[in-house]
């Protein structure tokens, strides 16, 4: 293998598909001269499982649950975008309370996603203490999410026409308590990032993507905002209840990993403000309206602001209950393109943090699902998965076998 890998004074090293710095498979082939990266090739697609094809053979309600599993971290934003699209097609208006609940869950999701990112980024630069701290604080958010939705991730709270669960007073009090304690922690992290010398030595000037390049490569989310582009769907196209909620777009002009870190931490503080506004102003009323079984024919482009950036769903319906085409453009997909530009000319040591700084979500970008059952990993086809879930519920006293499924041929 060495003959191929070492050419003159250049070494070609593969980062991935399996590598400790990558939490999901992706292959970055890096050519090094000494410690400097001279060339980078980005290979993604390991997680592609044809989710969009699967959507074309299921009713839109089944598709909703499939879409929620596009990503493990930002599942709510995908299901929100999808529901919004269907609601727009069929002309439903979501009750105001439901819109507020969607915003609350979305902001909680942003908090937990950014805290997760902060931990991963700290780990990439060998600062494990910050990693442990931020993940400890993330638990507070996950506890609230579990109480509100019954699940730590993949909340399953969205449905076409509203939400499936109401937030009770316990949850609302829990949110305001969590917001207070988390705010102190976040301010501490912000100070830490600003003051600590080793952190700024590892973050400043790394993964530069200037405003012009960010526009050219179509970067979205914190990557674009750290380059000074004030692009946030929550203000550009206020969806759901965001029209009534004041949202401050956080930007920064460092245009490097340091800027992205600062933007993410400030965004979390902003999310806390939004949460406080929401729990103060959440209206009473119903949480869902009935959705029709068939959706009128038409096409719609729906977008939301995911924790990682702009998330676009293209939905086309042909008038039946099965959608003609669903195309999910996750934010990571938009951020890949600037990566090669960011990597080249840097030190090898900065490659992991540069990759991590866009908060890549490979599953999102490739649209995939992996099924883990116990310690053996296997791919179940649709029928077996259904059988498995029926048995799982039977053990717990619920008989799901009586629920009829429409004819849909299985695959993968």
């Amino acid at each position, binding site marked *: *293998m*060495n003959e191929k*890998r*070492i050419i003159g004074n250049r*070494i*070609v*090293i*593969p980062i991935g598909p399996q*590598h*400790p*710095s990558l939490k999901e498979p992706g292959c970055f082939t890096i050519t*090094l001269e000494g*410690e400097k990266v001279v060339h980078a090739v980005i290979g993604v697609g390991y997680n592609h499982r044809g989710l969009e094809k699967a959507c074309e053979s299921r009713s839109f309600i089944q598709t909703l649950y499939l879409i929620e599993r596009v990503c493990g971290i930002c599942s709510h934003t995908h299901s929100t975008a999808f529901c919004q699209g269907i609601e727009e097609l069929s002309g439903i208006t979501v009750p105001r309370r439901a819109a507020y609940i969607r915003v609350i869950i979305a902001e909680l999701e942003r908090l937990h996603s950014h805290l997760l990112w902060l931990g991963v980024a*700290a*780990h*990439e*630069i*060998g*600062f*494990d*203490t*910050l990693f*442990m*701290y931020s993940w*400890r604080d993330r638990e507070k958010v996950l506890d609230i999410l579990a109480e509100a939705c019954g699940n730590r991730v993949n909340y399953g709270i969205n449905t076409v026409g509203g939400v499936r669960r109401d937030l009770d007073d316990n949850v609302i009090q829990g949110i305001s308590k969590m917001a207070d304690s988390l705010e102190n922690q976040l301010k501490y992290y912000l100070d830490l990032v600003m003051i*600590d010398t*080793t*952190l700024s*030595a*590892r973050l400043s000037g790394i993964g530069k993507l200037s405003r012009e390049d960010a526009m050219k490569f179509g970067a979205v989310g914190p990557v674009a905002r750290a380059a000074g582009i004030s692009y946030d769907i929550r203000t550009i196209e206020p969806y759901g209840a965001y029209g009534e909620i004041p949202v401050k777009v956080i930007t920064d002009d460092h245009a490097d990993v340091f800027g992205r870190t600062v933007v993410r931490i400030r965004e979390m503080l902003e999310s806390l403000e939004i949460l406080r506004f929401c729990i103060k102003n959440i209206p009473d009323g119903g949480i869902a309206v009935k959705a029709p079984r068939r959706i009128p024919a038409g096409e719609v482009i729906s977008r939301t602001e995911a924790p990682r950036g702009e998330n676009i769903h293209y939905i086309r319906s042909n008038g039946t209950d099965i959608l003609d085409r669903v195309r999910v453009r996750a934010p990571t997909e938009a951020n890949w393109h600037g990566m090669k530009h960011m990597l080249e000319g840097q*030190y*090898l*040591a*900065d*490659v*992991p943090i540069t990759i991590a700084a866009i908060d890549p979500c490979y599953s999102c970008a490739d649209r995939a699902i992996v099924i883990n059952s116990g310690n053996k990993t296997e791919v179940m086809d649709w029928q077996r998965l259904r059988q498995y879930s029926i048995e799982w519920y039977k053990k717990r006293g619920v008989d799901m076998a009586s629920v009829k499924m429409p004819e849909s041929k299985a695959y993968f």
Partner: protein
Amino acid sequence: MVSALVKIFIFPGFVFMAAYSMFLEYLDRKIYARLQNRIGPPWYQPLADFLKLLGKETIIPADANRMMFQVLPIASLAAVATSFIYIPVFGRNAVAYFEGDVVVVLYLLTVPTMSLFLAGWYSRGIYSTIGSVRTLTQMFAYEVPLFMALLAPGLIAKTWSVSGMAEFYSRHPLYILINVPAFAVALIAGQGKLERAPFDSPEAETEIVSGALVEYSGKLLALFRMSVDCELVLIASLISAIFLPFMTGNVILDFALYLIKTCAILVFFTIMRSVMARLRVDQMLAFYWRLLTPVAVVQMVINLLVRGNLRL
């Protein structure tokens, strides 16, 4: 003869060093975990890890040089064990000592690092090659300040024997105050020597998997890990013998003091590792050459001046 062998192999020689290294590893991991809001491992974890590794299959890569691959961990451990003989642990003097043994200790200390470099190089893997080059780069960075810091106290004590230095400073404890900068340099350079954060780029997990040792497994890895742990004991003992040589004259009490001093040094190492991010190789080099080496040089100059005016 028998008592010499007991001293070399059992106490305060190899067996004690190995056992104490496991205790220090446990302490290191436990404090590190507590600082990070984790629970941390139970006290027997390092021993369990070691025994488990011994029972695992040893895989030697097809491309690797078999002989070197197997000999290097043993060489590394042997060098550490040999140099430990020259460090006073139990009683006023070390098991063996002669004028100039600190130089021998310092040179034996480079053997584990060189073994690590060669191990990475002969494994012929991509990550291990980069890791071993980084190991060597780091060695060039920390060696000069570390050596100067450890030799500088010898200028005042007019001896280059570890036991001699310990004896001198225990008789004249106030002179130790002159060596405070060297003490700081030795602690920081020692952290680099042990490849611990923030100077752990040679084994940066998230960049090059685990550097030079990435191809190692089973018994050979266990030996390497043990020699790294023993290096920790060695460095802590060396620093405590040279810079913290407070003695009471009572052998048992002195031994207790030795344990306290080495544990205190370890706690410092652990806190340092937990509050900083990993420096890049170029930043590490700049730090050692621009900051630590000048401080060590200044210390040398001061000690030479003091030595000139010294009347003892």
